[in-house]
């Protein structure tokens, strides 16, 4: 099986950097057939997912929930998406991939509720503590 883990986010923008941190942790496990990449813009995802049996995207979430809470979403199930302007968000990229018939057989989003997204800040303590939980969630999604 080939699998791709994508850490989505911008380091040094507070909790927005959690995706790449979790992806790097998963990468350290050196699983056979697993590729790990870091992305700052979701639009590039479309060019990356082709050919993989399973894709897991790790991203920070801002839904007003409890900071550090980890949610696992099946991206193959259609959901809502926001109106877009010049840039494609993760939900739109997933919607576009669905219309183009390019959704991988398994497509999971591991989302970590963030607290602070200020430029020049590190992960907040509650999100930092959620990293191992998110790593476990990615590993479970890959099984």
């Amino acid at each position: 099986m080939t699998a791709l883990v994508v850490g989505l986010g911008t380091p040094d923008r507070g909790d927005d950097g959690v995706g790449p941190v979790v992806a790097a942790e998963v990468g350290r496990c050196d699983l056979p057939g697993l590729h790990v990449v870091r992305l700052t813009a979701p639009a590039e995802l479309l060019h990356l997912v082709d050919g993989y049996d399973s894709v897991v995207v790790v991203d920070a979430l801002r839904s007003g929930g409890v900071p550090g809470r980890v949610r696992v979403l099946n991206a193959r199930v259609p959901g809502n998406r926001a109106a877009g302007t010049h840039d494609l968000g993760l939900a739109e990229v997933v919607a576009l991939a669905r219309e183009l018939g390019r959704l991988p057989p398994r497509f999971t989003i591991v989302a970590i509720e963030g607290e602070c997204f200020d430029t020049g800040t590190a992960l907040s303590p509650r999100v930092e503590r959620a990293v191992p939980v998110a790593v476990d969630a990615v590993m479970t999604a890959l099984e």
Partner: protein
Amino acid sequence: MTRRTMKVGMLARVEGEGGMHVEVRDGRVEQVRLNIFEPPRFFEALLRGRDHSEAPDITARICGICPVAYQMSACLAMEDTFGIEVPEPIRLMRRLLYCGEWIESHALHVFFLHAPDFLGFDGGIEMAREHRGVVEAALRIKHAGNQLMSVVGGRSVHPVNVKVGGFHRMPTMVELTGIRPELVAARHDLLDLVPLLAGFDFPDLEQPHMYFSLGAEHGYPLESGSLVTSAGLHAPVSSFGEHVVEEHVEHSNALHARFDGANYVVGPLARYSLHSGSLSSLAAEVARAAGLGPTCRNPFRSILVRTVELVYALDEAVRIIDEWDGGPASVPVDVRAGVGHGATEAPRGLLYHRYRIDDDGSILDAWIVPPTSQNQPSVEEDLRLFVQDRLDLPQEELTLQCETAIRNYDPCISCATHFLDLTVHHR
């Protein structure tokens, strides 16, 4: 007395936040306003006191779609201040980087923001359902632009390789030849899509505005040049402020610009109408095949002109790579006090920067005039002309056509706020 009001609260498929309001009384269009409520950005003020070397990277942050335009205009203005003229290889590498930005930006606007209007879809994602091949090809074209930006600029958005005096590092021949096949394939993809675009049903509208662009010293205008207008003016970039005056209007957080007191247009239609003779032979052939003459004054056909420019950018990028012979990454910069001007052709039109620099190289003041604020009065005038002749159309159709008329300009509200939401009132 009959009154009709049309309104769209939040305009889709434009960059940033704004709306439109049209009021018709007794069969006459009385008021047309682009309401730009995205807050002002204050970039010019925050540049004061910063070092001249920071201007390219700070101003690049004004826009995620055309950061290269800001970097290039800022570099030219600083180099003008210090009396530097960069050697030909640096100018060519800037032109190559700029081609990457045009490819990214035009591919996005033509296929994802504008084509859905003509094909009757809410957006690119809905369009993908019935036009999968078109969207797949468009994504490949845009990706080619991203790759070019990454190779020359260091990354696909907000490049990090540009500095006053040139580049931090020149890409290697291996890197440049490595992206050539993707550019050639993108050009092939694009040529296959031209018949679809040329077959769109374009509403009639002939705009009366003056066209303004850079003059082509080195082919079609892009990374450098002097000022040229359809009224016959040829002038140095330093004379920009003698002609262009920006004014604040109540309904917009973007300044409205006028050229010698009149509305004018910058961007693809202006560049094409003034310089179609400078296109590459393939781009010129595509223009003819798409039914364009040597000039184009119908803003709805701007999607075709952007397509021609997209062919040109792909062609030009391949040409620069094929002829690349290397060169120094940068030239030394000796600072001195003075005033400098820089103008380049952003995807949406001429972008002007002017800086006053202190003798320690710090910025005393900055003046930045983005394309969308220059086009705003003409967008309003186009809508006035357009709506007046179509008052018998049903509300929903007229509103949609008005939105399309605004998207003709690919307005970048974030750049202009210092801009959109559509409200058309029929009273």
